[in-house]
């Protein structure tokens, strides 16, 4: 048996990246092993925990269930792409200030899911936040401070994204 690989052309966090991958490789594997962005976490590899959540063209997906070969040419956003150079996204800062990370292993997945919500909704209710994060598991926090974090930075984060060319998906469709 051999494990032959071919070149894939990916767009990760606004940068073109050429990587070698097998057709069967998941986006999670390729991001972590080939692109060497290890911020995206593997909690289960089965689509059950949300730790591996990234965005494809602005929409959250589970990278452990996505084949890398399928997303060639699309825009991939990982936790490393939320910040703007030195400047962290308001969501990331709020996460720290609210105490929304304990072990932090679920954090990148939650951030990518929450970012999507906030680009569409600058003042979500706590229940709307719960809905948007329903696919992500956290075993440390009981979610209270996660919801606090999303709530407290909502408007600011939306503005931050809009100013940096990551507008809400709704307005993109219009």
């Amino acid at each position, binding site marked *: 048996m051999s494990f032959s690989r071919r070149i894939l052309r990916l767009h990760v966090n606004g940068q073109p990246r050429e990587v070698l991958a097998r057709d069967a490789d998941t986006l999670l594997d390729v991001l972590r092993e080939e692109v060497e962005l290890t911020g995206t976490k593997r*909690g*289960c590899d089965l689509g059950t925990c949300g730790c591996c959540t990234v965005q494809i063209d602005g929409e959250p997906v589970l990278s452990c269930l996505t084949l890398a070969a399928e997303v060639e040419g699309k825009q991939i956003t990982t*936790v490393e792409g939320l910040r703007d150079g030195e400047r962290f996204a308001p969501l990331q800062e709020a996460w720290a200030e609210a*105490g929304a990370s304990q*072990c932090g*292993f679920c954090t990148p997945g939650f951030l990518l899911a929450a970012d999507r919500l906030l680009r569409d909704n600058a003042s979500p209710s706590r229940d709307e936040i719960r809905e948007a994060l329903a696919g992500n598991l956290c075993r440390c926090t*009981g979610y209270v401070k996660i919801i606090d974090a999303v709530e407290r930075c909502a408007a600011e984060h939306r503005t931050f994204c809009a100013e940096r060319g990551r507008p809400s998906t709704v307005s993109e469709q219009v």
Partner: protein
Amino acid sequence: MTRYQSTVGSRFPLIDSMEKTSGQGIYIEDMKFPGMLYARLVRSTETYAQVEEVDFSAAQEVEGYVDSLAPGEPGTGNTFGVLPISEDETPLPAPNALYSGAIVAAVACESEVGAREAALRVQMRTKKLPAVLRPKDALKETDQPIHSNTIGGTNLHKAVDQEFGDVDGAFEQADVVTGGEYVFDGINHGFTEPIGCIAVPEPNGRMSLYSATQVPHYLHRALAKVLEMPMHRIRVYKPLVGGGFGGKSDPFPHEMVAALLARKTGRPVKLIFDRDEVFLNNHGRHPTEYKIRVAADREGRLLGLDAHSRIDGGAWGSFGVVTTYYNGVLSQGPYRLPSFRYSGRRVYTNKPASGAMRGHGAVNARYALETALDEMAEKLQVDPFDLRAQNALPANTTTLNHLRITSTGFLECLERVRERSGWNEKFRKMPYGRGIGLGCGFYISGSALPIHRTRTPQSTVHIKIDVDGGVTIHSLAADIGQGSDTMLAQCVAEAMGVRIDRCRVLAKDTDTAPIDLGSYSSRVTFMAGNAALRAGEAIFRKLQRACARLTGKSAEGFVKGADETYLHLDDPGVVVPYMDALREALADNGALIAKGAYIAPKLGGAFKGSGAGLSPSYSYQAFVAEVEVDPETGFTRVDKIWAAHDCGKALNRLAVEGQLEGSVHMGMGQALTEQMVYLNNGQLRNASFLDYKIPSPVDTPEIEAIVVESNDPEGPLGAKECGEGALAPIIPAIGNAIYDAVGVRLHEVPMTPERVLKALEQKRKAEEKARAHS
């Protein structure tokens, strides 16, 4: 003059929180070494079998195959275990594979994909052995017990029998007796980061093991034993750890396997579990059968407690001896008990091992006791709050089993949670289907008796400060997300009068850190915190002397001032900035170093097992849950939880609340949805997050954490534990709320819809029968 502004009680983010939110934090799976191999484990498909031969010939055909490890090879049969009294684990079967899913062999390949493929191709020849799966069968005599250390020719691992006071007399005298029998399924820690490690054979012959562990020190000891190398030739390094909750506190077979493979191949070996392997490794909460009787007089005074537990240890000892004790001894609070009897039995079975999990040993017993008290209050027609308050253990007392009680905020917990939850307007007053319930608790702040009988302090902290003014703190207390690094930094900053961001905590490496017994038994804040304070105070005294040399004033007169300065009490005009004092202290001397250590006081009585449950202090809880139960579906929805916890002193309120909220969430999972389910052949049926149901954001209600501070006389700045005790009380709070809602008591936990429906059905039948008779 402006004094130092203490950070104690404020809300500040964990010092590593930007590492985590940036995605830059390094966990075990994120690490790589040049020339690294990938290992995969081959697991048993038999429930119990002797491994006769392992055949790697088909595996060797896989591209990039490098090597393998099989039973019988050097080191693979060496025993180890977290408790020196039951070291019954081996890296590989020697020669028996003890459960379906037990590790049998390993392969190492150049790539991860290759290793997976190779592992699938490994063949083994085994001889089936008669498996023991039910605890009651494990108590029968057998020719082939699972381990050689069992009692009386059975699979009984540990028996505890304790009696204090006149228990039989108490039950004879009693006006009211309540209690019952309860069954609890096994529970898994469910941390989001899978277990894993990387073993690196160093060119100088040393071995380094990088591992997601809660207790680097015990791992260090176990590696030395299995590898037959002196400890100083081994290094254990802990990267960021994605949660533990007790499930990363044992030294594990896979860590030994990785090290043995690294030694054999001379190359780094990475071994990361899949999620199902985390469940198969387990060491989670014991499946438990618990019987309880509680006696009281008609005034509501508790007279006695009589409890029996039978716990299913699975394949290995792990922390099980301690669990067996804790199932009884930790029921001695928060209530005054004039008599107490407990018997506990832990058995081995051919299932994944049980071990320590958040709230270790106290959780299932607590459900039984708090349910019995709820029944008691009903029979006596008193409010459940009043019954508990009436029987509260006072401060500065000793329990029957010689637990020393110092601080307690239990009454305040009761008062505050009663008020916040609106209890008086709701209890027994809501419409059918809606209910409110109370559950209380009591937990250790670290075990006073160390596992290894040595005179080494339980925690030691070193500090080093050089010309840059940064404060480097060395410790082996393991931050696994609970924030212990932040706690250490805070204690040192507080003792020295400097800003927290001067401090950098290196608590990850056995080569540099002094010994600390690690993150389990809720010991870190109390023990390592005290050690850190002492180390910080030692540095402060050096700085005081430097201030004296600079100013000609008395050293003892210098106190901590605002903005990192030292002021003299006699002369408010004398102000020495920290950096000036430091430069003077370093002159002709070199880096400032200091050490602080903590040893728990000698406690306890002179009877067998008296060490179990001894702690320098205890935490207290009173929780209320409000629920809605649908009598058609049996589904319970938790609407709101109020959780009051006495943590002594909240050093960092944000972190304390986080611990309480997380504990409550985890306990709610055990209460309603989480369970390890085994098939009749011993196979684990639900080894995934799809089938093992941890509450999601939409299943989890608002949790109001109520922080109660009793200012412990021996805790660091008054603090005691807040990370474990807060789990247990939520389960009976929910159970008692279900009773308030629909009038049934659940005797099986988790309280799934099926079980609630079954209980409702039984109640309906009983009522019909009663009507027919009347």
